[in-house]
């Protein structure tokens, strides 16, 4: 493993909102360079630092995970819904307008808009939470999604988080967030993920 690969492996486990993420990388590199300059072997240096996952967990343990009130999450979801609707609506409109028949079919338009927005929101949320740990709404409300250990979520976890949307049981799933200690949805508990306040305080 090279120095770059090691540092990348550590950072890759940390959510993007991890405070001083760049500083961590710079410090690790400086430490490795310092030891290399003193004639130590790279393998020994990396062994001293430990496995990337363990090191990432040690860093992430310093960041408190503050549960988010359900109302905040609802607001974030509402914000996410806006842009998706703005993209989906014109496309569906154009599609429905091409259906032959007398006049514009508003019922079909509404049904398709609802269905396509749901799928669009689900895809956008899943992809965005996996790649950046947050969506537009979560970013605006200062929230992000992490594993229960604080690590960045995996692709599989982001998929499991979206299952209730696809299974049309979102409201039942979201109901759990009102009563669980950490305000977790049922599928969040299943995927071992949490939505927490993003501690972005850079020092």
């Amino acid at each position: 493993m090279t120095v770059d690969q090691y540092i990348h492996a550590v950072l890759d486990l940390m959510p993007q909102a991890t405070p001083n993420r760049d500083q961590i990388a710079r410090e690790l590199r400086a430490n490795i360079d310092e030891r290399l300059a003193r004639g130590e072997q790279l393998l020994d240096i990396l062994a001293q630092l430990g496995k990337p996952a363990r090191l990432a967990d040690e860093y992430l343990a310093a960041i408190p995970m503050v549960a988010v009130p359900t109302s905040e999450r609802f607001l974030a979801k509402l914000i996410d819904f806006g842009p998706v609707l703005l993209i989906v609506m014109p496309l569906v409109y154009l599609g429905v307008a091409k259906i032959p028949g007398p006049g514009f079919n508003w019922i079909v338009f509404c049904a398709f808009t609802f269905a396509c927005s749901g799928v669009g929101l689900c895809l956008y949320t899943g992809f965005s939470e996996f790649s950046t740990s947050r969506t537009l709404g979560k970013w605006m409300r200062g929230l992000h999604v992490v594993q229960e250990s604080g690590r960045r979520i995996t692709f599989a976890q982001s998929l499991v988080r979206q299952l209730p949307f696809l299974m049309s049981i979102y409201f039942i799933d979201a109901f759990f967030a009102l009563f669980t200690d950490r305000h977790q949805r049922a599928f969040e508990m299943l995927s071992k993920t949490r939505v927490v306040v993003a501690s972005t305080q850079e020092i």
Partner: protein
Amino acid sequence: MTPSADSTDDRRSIERELKRGSLELIVLHLLAGGEAYGYEIVSKLTAETNGALEVTDGTLYPVLYRLERAQLVTVRWETPERGVPRKYYQLTDAGRTELARLTHEWTTFANAMTTLLRTEREGR
């Protein structure tokens, strides 16, 4: 696993937990003498304890990160024209207060343990 392996693991675990619990105190104490960078802190600890206490980089840096986030230390980077850049850590006033608090806690605990163990030994 054999019983001896079990007891060795237990002993290592106690050492690890003791070290982990006192690591912030150790680092704050080492920084009380003046600013230092990561490698220097590790070397100082080994030298001042004749190797009895050692800490790996993988344990030290997350502790420094915690201290920095808690604003118990401030940092500055020094990038020499030749050589590697170094991140220097320095105690803040809050850091000194925390050091005094942790030192008091540690001393109380250590005294209590010493008294307890002495009583145990004398009782036998």
